[in-house]
């Protein structure tokens, strides 16, 4: 059980070393949190205060279960704000905490420098707390049913708030479906538009993080490894650090371990250009860019990656050449693994919303698509919603009007 004083002492050992190496994490507010607290934070994507919605209850249960069966464990959470907040597991050992602090410093440094985060406001904790109050207010005023159903539907669109990390004021680009409907949905009332705008702001906050999973974790793993090699640690501490690091980079096929891949990429960068190249890559790349620029044949062999074809009867892997792995990996990482959905602004009108899926070779999940479109059609546009896509090579137009589902050729 770590005490605040222990933590302060550990920070004093890691921080000077990190600054000496060139990290610039800014101000960080460290907070020791127990198991339950961390699980709660993790289920809310690391933010202390979120709007009330049942999906967080579900997500909390999932985090708890994963913990109980030791499938994964959350040791730290870092909030990208100024000052940054770092929530640290208070049940860990001192050795573990050393590594976690180093990891956290690198995350904070990454948030401050990577170009994807340039437009993220620095007071998101307070903003989300404000959203929470506003949404609770609307629940009181208009009924929790009205608010809950709106959030249910909005969550379908929260993945589509614009693919760029530059923010175009909401609804002005075709890929910002959420912003478009918040402005243009014909029958929404003022509070509903405001609610959608708040949810869009939250989604925008998470978007760069979704784009830099491998880069951010890889960078942090690179730095905790490097700092732990330089730090003066006792035998027990060294054992705990090494053990935790081994857990972090362990593989469980077929899941891709972003910590491991990211670490290997940054190690490769360091090998070729030293620390200046590492800092350059930190400033510049999201996941797709990192892989495009630095994933080469040598790394492909080292990373031990395969191309998988998921199947109901067990995944089937095939060994593929470095080129194939690279191109499939880039496709997986592009746009954070989300499909490209566009508003068809020309065809859309108050009585019909038209969306277009820019097909890149991967079909959509047609099992849940009707339910997703139904939510948008029924609660938000309150008129038919059509998504044009390609299914197994043929063009389809899928429409839901809130009650009926129509799937036809186009």
């Amino acid at each position, binding site marked *: 059980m770590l005490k605040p004083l222990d933590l302060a002492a550990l920070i004093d050992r890691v921080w000077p070393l990190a600054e000496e190496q060139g990290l610039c994490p800014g101000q960080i507010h460290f*907070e020791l949190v127990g198991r339950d607290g961390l699980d709660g934070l993790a289920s809310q*994507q690391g933010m202390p205060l979120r709007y009330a919605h049942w999906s967080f209850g579900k997500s909390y249960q999932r985090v708890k279960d994963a913990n109980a069966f030791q499938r994964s464990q959350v040791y730290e959470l870092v909030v990208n704000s100024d000052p940054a907040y770092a929530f640290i597991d208070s049940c860990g050992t001192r050795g573990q905490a050393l590594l976690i602090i180093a990891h956290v410093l690198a995350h904070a440094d990454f948030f401050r420098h990577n170009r994807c985060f340039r437009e993220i406001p620095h007071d998101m904790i307070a903003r989300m707390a404000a959203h929470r109050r506003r949404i609770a207010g609307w629940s009181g005023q208009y009924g929790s049913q009205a608010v809950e159903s709106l959030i249910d539907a909005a969550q379908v669109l929260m993945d589509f708030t614009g693919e760029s990390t530059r923010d175009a004021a909401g609804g002005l680009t075709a890929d910002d479906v959420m912003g478009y409907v918040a402005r243009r949905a014909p029958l929404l009332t003022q509070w509903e538009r405001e609610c959608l705008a708040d949810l869009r702001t939250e989604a925008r906050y998470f978007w760069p*993080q979704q784009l830099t999973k491998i880069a*951010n974790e890889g960078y942090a793993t690179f730095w905790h490894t490097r700092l732990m090699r330089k730090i003066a640690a006792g035998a027990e501490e060294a054992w705990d650090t090494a053990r935790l690091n081994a857990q972090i980079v*362990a593989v469980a096929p077929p899941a891709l371990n972003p910590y491991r891949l990211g670490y290997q990429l940054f190690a490769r960068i360091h090998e070729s250009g030293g620390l200046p190249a590492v800092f350059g890559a930190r400033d510049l790349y999201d996941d797709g860019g990192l892989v495009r620029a630095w994933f080469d044949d040598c790394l492909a062999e080292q990373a*031990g990656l395969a191309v998988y074809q998921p199947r109901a009867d067990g995944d089937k892997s095939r060994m593929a050449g470095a080129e194939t792995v690279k191109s499939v990996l880039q496709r997986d990482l592009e746009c954070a693994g989300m499909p490209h959905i566009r508003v068809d602004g020309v065809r859309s009108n108050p009585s019909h919303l038209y969306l277009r899926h820019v097909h890149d070779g991967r079909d959509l999940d047609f099992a849940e698509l009707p339910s997703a479109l139904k939510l948008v059609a029924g609660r938000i546009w309150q008129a038919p919603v059509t998504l044009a896509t390609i299914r197994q090579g043929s063009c389809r137009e899928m429409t839901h009007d809130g009650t009926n589902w129509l799937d036809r050729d186009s």
Partner: protein
Amino acid sequence: MGSWPPDDETHAAADKRRQQSRIREAIRSNLGDLVRERKILGSDGRHTVKLPMFRCPEFRIRFGWHDTERVGQAPGGLPGDTNGAACPSAQAPGMNSAAGGDGSAAEDETEDRVPLEEVSAEVFADLALPDLDPARTAPGAGSSVEVVGIGRGGLRQQWAKKSTLLANLRRNAMAGWPGFSGLARQDLRFWVSGPVAAEQGGAVVLAMMDTSGSMGTFEKYLAKSFFFWTVEFLRRNYPQVEIVFLAHDVRAREVDEETFFHRGASGGTVSSSVYRLALDILVERFPADRYNAYAFHFTDGGNLTSDNAIALETGARLASLATLFGYSEIHDSERHPSPLFRGFSQLPGPGLGVMLLHSQEDILRALFHFFGKSRDTSRA
């Protein structure tokens, strides 16, 4: 911000409650499927039911999981990697930054297992023994609030003066000054009340099942399902109510619960035998002035033709004695109701309910037909 969690209790707990209430809504809207679920019947020691439809899914527009190639870690050892075997429990990365990666499709595929207990609670929430006369004095559906003891705290109206006096005397005697003096707060005693099983609203349920050879697997399954849920419901809502199990073919016997649910079937059908046995049992053991009697008979309707008139007559007597006599016929195909069914349908009076069951969905319908709080006395 002070320390995390600021108002965790109200916050996380509220989201969790809301999710659970969504699960309950899902249970309620799927009761029919649940009640029909064969697995519930098995006494295999599992107390949960699998409810794949209660995932409270969050729908998204995303890529199909199947038939799309993606990159993952290759199986087998990696070059220079020796910790694959040494660290078998490390299934996933140990850390998590504040990245917003949401649950993937694969994560959502787990089924919720809902405890049987919870399902029962939902099924039984709206069920009750109909037309219960609370004035009948036998163990049954009633309970009353009575004094169950003496305590040290309470309202002034519940002040137990005699016990207080005794406590004072005892304390003074201990201190060496026998006699009543110096009444203090610690001497005060109060009556404590609590719910007790009362000898009122006495009730008995007679479960009568046709176990003749003509009852096929389907008919037996429906009948047993109905009685399974009835027994569960009674045990839960009315633990005092007695249940009598009667099985019959050409003759009727009183059996124990185990035999009732697990015996095979053979022989012909003479329904009057079980009605006569039921009448005897009611008269001998459960007099009408003390007990509300509920009798339920499940059969395939293939009663011996020569017995129909007698069965109708004894059945009518049973209905007049019982608060409710439920007669149910199970037909796996559309065929005309038996003469017995038509006979019972035409009998007047509120004490008789008849019903035809065709499919598994009807089990729930039967439960609500006979035990629904707003029981519709019209014939189903």
